[in-house]
């Protein structure tokens, strides 16, 4: 299989099935689902094959593919992955496979839904595998746009209407409705991409306008003044996607309004794309600026951790709790990266992976609960564990991973990050991080207790609800399995991560 363009197959297989679905899927729901499954399964197989064949001893970028796209401007369709992107590709493959199962029950306009979902995934895969900055940006935009329609058409508007001044804002703008959330998310992310684009072009021109390739740009030593502002442009641009404070507000709205599979993919993978961008482009290309701005990145990450956790505690809507927990957990990712230590950066990348799986699981389960109980209001539900034990157990495992219990993937990630924070130049970062972890256990356990294990609700709507069924199990099993597997054997992901973070840190001169 060595002669095969595996990365291209991985990236374009979902796109091909999207085309098939658009072409032949009209009022054939079975065909739509199986084609989508086939496309994502091909990607999954490719991802596993890549994982098995990635040469850890050689490290660096492997499975190189190249095709000139716009030679006169030095734009090349150039793909390759290193350890970090390998793990991200694996994460994406897992989440979308589970996502296809989780959306098996989508009834309205299923043809368009699956086609857009698969288009979105093509963009996500493309970002992780592309080496050319420009192709990277192209895929990035593809990953953003379908979101508008996915949330706008298939999303759900929040039940808990805002009060007070927010109530007034609701009347003016429709805060909390799916249309509002979809537009807000799209505009925020596109706004971010404007920063990224200008930063990229500035680097390209400064390097002599010959190539957009990451490898070529890595070799250039940019002027510190240029580095400084380009880093900030990348940080804001990608940071919006990674939900850094104060640009995080699109994320709770967007994730709460999105349909299940889209929330899974967005919170699980797309937000990581932002962090990945900061690490890959910001830290990878601009070493001096990284040193210069690490304090800012880390401090804002601390705000994210604590503020996200506090906000999650205040929510009454289940989806908003999960969405704010993502804001908090993305803070841990950014904090790990900002420590500029080996354990911190490894923890950050591992947290991307772990949180991706975990939050994917959460949104899948919330989707199921909503489908059965038609409610997202935490405090009206109660005692669901007796009716839906499977969902309850899975949710609890996810919750325990979220608060960092040993033997789950979340523990490994948080532990490494905290270690990095303590040994970094700003050891005080450890305290907000630990406070965040503490607050996380509060809000997670509170939700788990209120909905599943606490006293049974007397509301007649919530009697005799079914547990997960059929294909729904598949999604849950895949995600819980991954969460526990990587918690027990973190080396599976940490080894490839480590071979890519070490060279990066060496270039930064901190190792």
């Amino acid at each position: 299989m060595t002669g095969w363009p595996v990365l291209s197959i991985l990236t374009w297989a979902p796109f091909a099935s999207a085309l098939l679905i658009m072409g032949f899927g009209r009022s054939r729901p079975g065909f739509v689902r199986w084609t989508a499954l086939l496309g994502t399964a091909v990607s999954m197989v490719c991802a596993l094959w890549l994982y098995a064949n990635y040469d850890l001893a050689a490290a660096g970028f492997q499975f190189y593919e190249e095709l000139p796209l716009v030679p006169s401007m030095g734009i090349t369709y150039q793909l390759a992955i290193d350890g970090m992107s390998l793990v991200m590709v694996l994460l994406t493959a897992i989440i979308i496979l589970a996502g296809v199962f989780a959306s098996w029950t989508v009834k309205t306009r299923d043809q368009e839904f699956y086609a857009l979902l698969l288009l979105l995934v093509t963009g996500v895969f493309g970002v992780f595998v592309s080496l050319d900055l420009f192709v990277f940006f192209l895929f990035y935009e593809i990953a953003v746009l379908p979101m508008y329609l996915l949330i706008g058409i298939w999303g759900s508007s929040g039940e808990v209407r805002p009060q007070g001044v927010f109530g007034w804002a609701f009347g003016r703008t429709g805060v909390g409705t799916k249309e509002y959330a979809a537009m807000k998310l799209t505009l925020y992310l596109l706004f971010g991409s404007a920063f990224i684009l200008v930063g990229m072009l500035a680097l390209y021109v400064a390097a002599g306008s010959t190539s957009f390739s990451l490898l070529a740009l890595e070799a250039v030593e940019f002027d510190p003044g240029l580095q400084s502002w380009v880093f900030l442009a990348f940080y804001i641009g990608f940071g919006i996607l990674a939900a850094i404070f104060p640009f995080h507000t699109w994320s709770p709205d967007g994730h709460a309004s999105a349909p299940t599979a889209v929330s899974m993919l967005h919170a699980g993978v797309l937000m990581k794309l932002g962090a990945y961008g900061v690490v890959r482009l910001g830290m990878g290309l601009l070493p001096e600026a990284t040193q210069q701005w690490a304090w800012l990145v880390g401090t804002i990450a601390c705000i994210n951790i604590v503020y996200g956790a506090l906000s999650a505690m205040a929510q009454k809507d289940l989806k908003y709790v999960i969405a704010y927990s993502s804001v908090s957990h993305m803070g841990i990712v950014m904090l790990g990266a900002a420590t500029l230590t080996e354990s911190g950066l490894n923890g950050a990348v591992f947290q991307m992976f772990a949180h991706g799986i975990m939050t994917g699981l959460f949104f899948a389960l919330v989707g199921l609960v909503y489908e059965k109980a038609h409610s997202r209001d935490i405090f009206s539900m109660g005692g669901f564990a007796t009716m839906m034990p499977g969902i309850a157990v899975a949710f609890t495992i996810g919750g325990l991973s979220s608060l960092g219990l040993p033997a789950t993937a979340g523990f490994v990630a948080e532990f490494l990050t905290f270690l990095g924070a303590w040994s970094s130049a700003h050891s005080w970062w450890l305290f907000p991080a630990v406070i965040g972890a503490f607050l996380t256990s509060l809000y997670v356990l509170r939700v788990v207790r209120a909905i599943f294990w606490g006293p049974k609700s007397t509301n007649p709507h919530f009697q005799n609800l079914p547990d997960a069924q059929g294909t729904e199990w598949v999604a849950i099993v895949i995600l819980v399995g991954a969460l526990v597997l990587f918690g027990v054997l973190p080396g599976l992901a940490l080894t490839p991560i480590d071979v890519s973070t070490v060279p990066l840190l060496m270039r930064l001169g901190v190792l």
Partner: protein
Amino acid sequence: MDPSWPLMIEGWLFALLLVVFVLGLLRRQANDALAGWITLAGLVGISVAAWNAEPGRVALEGTFVLDELSLFGKRLFLVASVLSVLATQAMTHASFRRRGTEYYVAFLASLLGMLVLASARDLIVLFVAFELMSIPLYFLTGFLKGDKAAPEGAMKFFLVGSISSAVILYGLSFVYGAAGTTDMSAIPPLVATANPLMLLGLALMLGGLGFKIAAVPFHMWVPDTYEAANTPFVAWISIAPKTAGFLAIFRLYVEGVGEGAVLWVPIVSVLAGVTIVAGNLMAIPQSNIKRLLAYSGVAHIGYLLLGLAAMSVSGVGMVLFYLVAYLFGNMGAFFVVQAVAASEGSDEIEKYQGLARRSPVLALSLLLFLLSLGGIPFMAGFWAKLFIFWAVVEQGMYWLAFLGAVLTVVALYYYLVVARRMYIEAPTNPAPIPVPAVLMVAIGGCVAGILIMGVYPEPWVRAFMRVAMTLFSTI
């Protein structure tokens, strides 16, 4: 006619114009469809001739050149005209049945002006060509004279257009005073020495040209004109006369000037920045899709000026790319508007509710056009914007690129509002919208254009860069 004669394209067009004119004289009744088809066939033939024409020849003692830039302009005008005439065949308005030949004669006369203008290397020829282009446009805007809005739009357009012509002429007199000749090749040396009379003249002309291309603050006529005129014609004036304006700007301010062109950078950048911001912001509250596209068109002119502000080979090359991308995206959008208006009887954005479920193909086409205009990957408009930003960043004008990039987000907002109507909201009337075959062909052509340029831009970039190079090499 001798195929190597530099005026061959104009000659054929003039012949076509006479044929349509005589046809109108001979058969006053029931000749509408025939005139349209003859015009269409003639334009297709002339386009083929324009594609086979070789650049690099001069006629009429140097006042008329057939170089790379003029060929680019002529081809663009012809493609836009073919698409527009194709869409006009789908017009069922009574005026087109009764007075169709009048429409085509005026249309061809205006086109003839554009073709000559693309080749003009003499100030007088330039001005006469400009007027030949503009005067039929005023008439065509008011063509549907029974409509309430048409005379008003035409009048406004006429007044603004005449004033801008006067301003251009006034500036031209200074240029002539400084140079002592109407030959444009006399301009660069005087710009290089910063002759005040010459600069004053050129600055005045830039204001006049600003009216023609509808840069802010000279854009007021655009929305009213677009709203008043018939849609295939609006599709055409949204691109063809604007391109003509840019060609004139290239000839006057860029060609042969070399380093001296840097002089215009501050004024053009300010004009570009203001146009982008104002155009995009004013598009937001529009509820009529033609007015929305009018304001978004103003914003696009801002992006084109941004490319001009770079005053470099890549800047000019990318403006050319942008013009072609804009042609397909914008004309296509107007054609969809025409189809919807023919069925719904209104240009209000409300009427697009649930279009995706009524006519999926039409809705998808409009979505693609809007995304291309908004600059989304794999559409022509994406590369166009990107190339413009690249050219600007290359000159170190980061803030301008940044401003442009941020305001594309605003543009996407109002394009997405239309997308929301089409895709998210449910239709009030589920019947599909009938689209005449000719209009479908025109829309299909535009979709093909944005996708081909979007997926594989390389050959286009190369060709346009070559054209731009000639502007900077010939002194």
